[in-house]
């Protein structure tokens, strides 16, 4: 095997993790759209957070300057990723931590499982982490006989309800308070049967339920929001205190982190700690942020492992247009402003990364052929670009991925697609005046066939499933002009 072959950027492997859905987006979206309760829950939740976020962003006079700095820092990180990762490894090791490298989900799951086994524990507690959901860590631990307890309230709701997360920040956004109460009553051992659906009461029930777990579990698994290459410092931002519990109480802490989560210097945190809470939960600052560097004698876990995860990220980095998807700080602002997400919810995207960022990140991590419908799960309205705190140009990446998908289709099929044939015919027609005028007259005849919005006949019907066919006018502009 040559060195060049081994060093080729690779996409995330199939058959493990949660980056691929069972069905294409339009099929899954149709089911979500028919769920009136889901749409009400999503509409209420996204409207609430949009208003909160807008209010606290308005308080900051230099929001655009912070966004620009965030974008530039992440661009720099991607350009220097190998050297910064090596620097991080040195700093974490010097501070008493152990660094592991995982090329893909399979390897990461094996590393974490082996580390947990070595402690002798058959249970781990977890802080909400997108990376561990991406690799399917809970399923891998379960297969090894290790119980994984989710401690974030929304993750707990999802886990107890045997459900799937549907939002990056609030995985149970699709559930309202009444549904959460029912899940708790059904699944939480020893819960007060008089439980009401008051959010404060539900939160108190979770507090009681998890307290014993926090105090008795010897191993925790977390993700990371940021890692500082220069110092080896890791940061986790959270609200509830479950993160602090997991980062402080156990003997062993295992952090699984995507390799793109780096910032070069300590001072760079000043940009992201201002951007993330305001864009994410719509707070000036989230209730708790923990930062730690390796192991602190006498305070917190005395054994610390950092697992650096590739799982397709090198393939994303290889695409000069698409690599900015790696700048994402998982705030989920793009979900909350997206007219598509607001109506379909997160499950329709199949991957753990839903919404606009998911539509560009998932297909790149897996290769576009494995998530071919996602680049089309957008109206290209651009609201996500405006909302992104690190200015990821999501619409441009969507168009870029659509072009990739079309090119891949062309090279895989001897016959062109119906869409390609139609577009070629349309281009020829528009290029030739007599043909174009004849086509306009023919289109007008369709006024008398069928009702408006009835759609085109097969094989062109695919185009009009999600689009209204415009009513041709009684008179064309050219005809009107000729009469003047």
């Amino acid at each position, binding site marked *: 095997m040559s060195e060049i072959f081994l*060093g*080729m*950027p*690779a996409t995330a492997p199939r058959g493990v993790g949660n980056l691929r859905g069972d069905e294409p987006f339009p099929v899954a979206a149709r089911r979500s759209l028919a769920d009136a309760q889901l749409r009400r*829950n999503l509409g209420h939740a996204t409207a*609430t*957070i949009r208003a909160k976020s807008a209010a606290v962003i308005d308080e900051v006079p*230099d929001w655009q*300057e912070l966004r620009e*700095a965030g974008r*530039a820092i992440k661009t720099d990180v991607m350009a220097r*990723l*190998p050297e910064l*990762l*090596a620097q991080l490894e040195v700093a974490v090791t010097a501070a008493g931590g152990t660094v592991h*490298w*995982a*090329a893909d989900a399979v390897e990461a799951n094996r590393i974490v499982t082996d580390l947990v086994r070595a402690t002798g524990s058959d249970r781990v507690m977890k802080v909400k982490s997108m990376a561990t959901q991406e690799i399917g860590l809970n399923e891998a631990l379960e297969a090894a006989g290790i119980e994984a307890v989710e401690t974030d*309230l929304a993750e707990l709701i999802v886990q107890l309800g045997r459900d799937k997360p549907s939002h990056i920040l*609030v995985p149970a956004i699709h559930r*309202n*308070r009444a549904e959460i109460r029912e899940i708790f009553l059904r699944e939480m051992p020893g819960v007060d049967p008089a439980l009401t659906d008051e*959010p*404060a009461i539900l*939160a*108190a029930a*979770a*507090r009681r339920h*998890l307290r014993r777990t926090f*105090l008795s579990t010897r191993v925790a698994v977390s993700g990371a929001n940021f890692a500082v290459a220069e110092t080896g410092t890791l940061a986790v931002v959270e*609200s*509830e*205190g479950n993160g*602090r*519990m997991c980062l*402080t*109480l156990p003997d062993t802490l295992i952090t699984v982190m995507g390799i793109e989560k780096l910032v070069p210097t*300590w*001072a760079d*945190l*000043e940009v992201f700690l*201002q951007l993330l*809470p305001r864009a994410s*939960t719509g*707070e*000036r*600052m989230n*209730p*708790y*942020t923990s*930062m*730690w560097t390796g192991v*602190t004698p*006498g*305070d*917190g876990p005395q054994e610390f492992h950092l697992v650096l995860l*590739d799982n397709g990220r*090198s393939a994303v980095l*290889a695409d000069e247009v698409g*690599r900015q998807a790696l700048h994402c700080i998982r705030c989920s602002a793009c979900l909350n402003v997206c007219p598509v997400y607001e109506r379909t919810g997160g499950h329709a995207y199949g991957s753990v990364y839903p919404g606009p960022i998911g539509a560009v990140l998932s297909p790149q991590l897996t290769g576009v052929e494995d998530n071919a419908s996602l680049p089309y799960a957008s109206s290209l309205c651009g609201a996500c670009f405006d909302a992104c705190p690190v200015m990821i140009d999501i619409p441009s990446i969507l168009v870029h991925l659509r072009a990739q998908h079309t090119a891949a289709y062309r090279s895989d099929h001897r016959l062109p697609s119906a869409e390609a044939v139609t577009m070629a015919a349309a281009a020829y027609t528009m290029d030739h005046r007599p043909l174009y005028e004849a086509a306009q007259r023919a289109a007008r005849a369709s006024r008398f066939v069928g009702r408006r919005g009835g759609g085109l006949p097969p094989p062109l019907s695919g185009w009009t499933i999600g689009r209204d066919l415009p009513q041709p006018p009684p008179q064309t502009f050219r005809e009107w002009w000729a009469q003047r």
Partner: protein
Amino acid sequence: MTSRELILGRLRAALGATPTTPEAVARSYRPAGGAVDLDVLVHRLTDYRATVHRCSDGEVAQVVDAVLGGRRVVVPPGLPRRWLPDSVEVLTDDNLPTAEIAAADGVVTAAAVAVAETGTVILDAGVDQGRRLVTLLPDVHICVLRTDQVVAGVPDALARLGPDRPLTWISGPSATSDIELNRVEGVHGPRHLHVVIVPA
């Protein structure tokens, strides 16, 4: 070949033989050094449901008495004893068992830095702040802050702090937005946060 070499090789291949030189980062946002407004701090703390007390150093014990009088209170080993009234049962954390800390009613600590603009108190595990878990398990946290520890914004705070100690940034009591995205105070961390601001 190790996975380390494999991943670094993939990343180098992804960037190409001649990686683009990164652009200089324009930092035109507000730098450290802004004016500190204590009223802003008080407003932001209160807005996120922390209780703020402003008093002299000599009156701290009265505040502690009013909040935790008659209760069991954990304190870090370096906490000034003058802040503790006779009415509280004091448990000094010289490596107390976790269960004992969890069973305490409250905790009193000092702070390292506070950020006015975000209403954030930052602990750096110094001797008057203690191990991270002492401010996590009891349900009431009283945090005594000197005015000279207050800075204007996040850049000022990071400039005063370093990576050599574990940091806990606290902005209000434990909260969640997981139920219909409404902020609800009181999940796993202390459900009551009192910030006592004393003159430097």
